[in-house]
């Protein structure tokens, strides 16, 4: 592989490569206008009376104030008003067309998942599934929806998956990373079983409120710690899935870890391999080395991409993970957006670059 730092100006002048963006966040222009049509009167009234209650104390904002309002790019507010990510035309001009996005995966956040009232969580997820088709995928063929499930209620989740299974509007099943229990635990197995039946990957996006502190040692003070901590959170859920034997029980399961970084994966795999060797008597249901299971079953989106000095160190890390396992993502319209032309500031081979930016995603989602 030919490795050298790219000249930034030269990069920007090139014709833009077609990309897949595996993490785009759409938002309703207005919940009453866009979501209520899919909620019964009973649940509209409930929403008006109680709002959405998470395992978090503030009803009108996050536990940690974000770095930017709505965690959004300052320039991502649609000129016609509304939240960033709520206007398809503006998303087209600012992102899809401008960055030559051939495939965009929608990951709606704060859209019914991790809600304390389980019945409300289920109907809200269902409403958001209808909304994604009506407002997004039916109008823009480059976009694919995520099948929202109320994951703390696995039987309701299975119902939702079975309802939409085979609908090509959906590319994956979406969960948030901060579940109430470690994600490999058997409570969640029916969701994995249904995902395999529907032939859909399970994507786990960083964030949510599961009730436990962000660290095993309590609550930190700062938003930056919560943000950085999504990587640790994701490592814990992956550890659970490996040591609970989920990948052996569901051999066709595909897991996508979204917005949690990726450079931590090799060190985690080495640690789990070592522990597996030492503790096999405790976890006899894990019959293969964790690193093998991870390599076979796990993909990761790239944003926010780690930025070592020197940048070449990242090439070692990607080699250790496997070029075929990374899915490019920008996180549009959030503030920590990774600009496609600058996200990989290292010269790599054409084949690797195409895999990284597009082909891995097309293959994983069976969209070739």
């Amino acid at each position: 592989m030919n490795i050298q730092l790219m000249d930034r100006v030269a990069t920007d002048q090139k014709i833009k490569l077609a990309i897949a963006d595996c993490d785009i966040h759409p938002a309703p222009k207005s919940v009453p206008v866009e979501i209520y049509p899919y909620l019964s009167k009973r649940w509209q009234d409930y929403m008006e009376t109680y709002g959405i209650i998470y395992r978090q104390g503030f009803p009108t904002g996050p536990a940690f104030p974000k770095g930017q309002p709505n965690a959004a790019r300052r320039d991502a507010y649609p000129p016609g008003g509304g939240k960033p990510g709520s206007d398809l035309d503006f998303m087209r001009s600012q992102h899809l067309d401008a960055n030559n996005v051939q495939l965009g995966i929608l990951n709606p956040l704060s859209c019914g998942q991790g809600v304390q009232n389980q019945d409300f969580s289920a109907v809200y997820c269902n409403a958001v599934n209808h909304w994604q088709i009506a407002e997004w995928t039916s109008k823009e063929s480059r976009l694919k929806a995520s099948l929202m499930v109320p994951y703390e209620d696995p039987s309701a989740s299975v119902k939702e998956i079975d309802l939409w299974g085979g609908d090509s509007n959906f590319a994956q099943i979406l969960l948030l990373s901060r579940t109430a229990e470690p994600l490999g635990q058997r409570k969640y197995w029916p969701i994995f079983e249904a995902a395999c039946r529907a032939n859909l990957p399970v994507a786990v996006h960083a964030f949510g409120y599961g009730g436990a502190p962000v660290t095993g040692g309590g609550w930190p003070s700062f938003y930056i710690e919560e943000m950085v901590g999504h990587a640790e959170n994701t490592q814990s859920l992956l550890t659970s899935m490996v040591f609970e034997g989920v990948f052996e029980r569901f051999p066709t399961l595909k897991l996508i870890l979204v917005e949690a970084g990726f450079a931590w994966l090799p060190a985690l795999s080495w640690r789990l391999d070592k522990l597996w060797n030492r503790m096999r008597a405790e976890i006899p249901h894990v019959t293969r080395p964790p690193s093998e299971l991870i390599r076979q079953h796990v993909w990761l989106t790239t944003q926010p991409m780690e930025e070592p000095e020197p940048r070449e160190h990242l090439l070692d890390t990607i080699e250790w993970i496997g070029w075929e396992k990374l899915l490019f993502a920008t996180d549009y319209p959030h503030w920590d957006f990774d600009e496609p032309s600058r996200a990989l500031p290292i010269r790599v081979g054409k084949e690797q670059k195409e895999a990284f930016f597009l082909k891995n995603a097309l293959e994983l989602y069976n969209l070739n």
Partner: protein
Amino acid sequence: MSPSIMTKGAIDCDIHPSVPNIEALLPYFNDHWRDTISQRGVHDLQTIAYPKNAPLTARPDWRPKLGMPAADANTISTQALDTFQTSIAICNCLYGVQLLMSEDLAAAFASAVNDWMIAELLNKDPRLRASIVIPTQNSEMAVAEIERVASDPRFVSILMLVMDEKPLGRRSYWPIYAAAQRHNMPICVHAGSAYKHPVTSVGWPSYYAEDYASQAPAFHNMVSSFICEGVFSEYPDLKVVLAESGFSWLPAHLWRLTKFWRGLRAEIPWVDRTPTEIARDHIRLTLQPVDAPPTSEQLERLMDHMGSDEMIIFSTDYPHWQFDGVDVIPDGISKELATKIMVENPKNTYPRLQ
């Protein structure tokens, strides 16, 4: 590894003496606590961080037929020091003092463990040193315990667990760090939990293997906490030793933390240089366990990613089962680096060893 890479006079920065049983501590409590322990039936403070018979807890050849491993000075001297030709070894006693709910009981236990270590370990082998066990439940009491024993130069650091009630950078712990800096001691943050919270951010796991795996993410969180809270801006001479943490995760964590610092530094304006630079100056990590890549060539690349040859300090993690024989230095570490890890880096980390 070839044994020739070992240097005589290595300083082992992480060994674990076991309190043989609670009776061994009774001479070091006052009458009130002695009565409390007997009348209430206070149990031994072994913890689920190291289940007694779990393979990791004691290497087979270091596991006694009866009782706890590494429970007396003679055993430790023979197995841990003579074997590796160690000149000095630092005892990090993992008795579950930090897990207690009562601050008063914890303070009494911390004093008892420290006095037991003086009498049964430090006084019996001149090569032994120790970290001060403190009641982290209450910083004032913790500082009082540090002041009580710090005049003994054989205490060379202060022990905390990686998972306590609050992330370790939080301001309520700062009196402990002020005392550490005042007495020329690093803080030793060791694997383990006070179990006041689930060990993962997604709740309690099913298996011990997960509990042990989750120590590494907890260390990542605490590196973030120490740096983001500004501990090293306030205490510029302070070093933090991460013990039994693994180290192969550090570069990736610092890449991520530094990237977010670039975007969010307005939130933590006292952090006035990159987390990577701060870590290189203030964070040290013990050698074992080595969560090493499968090839020595990859380990060489990883050591390059570390960006410093001063951060890793020698440890065997005795009696925990991390390696076999004397195979303590992994392939891929040069003779020159091994010498730094075994002698120079520990000396530069612990001012009281100079």
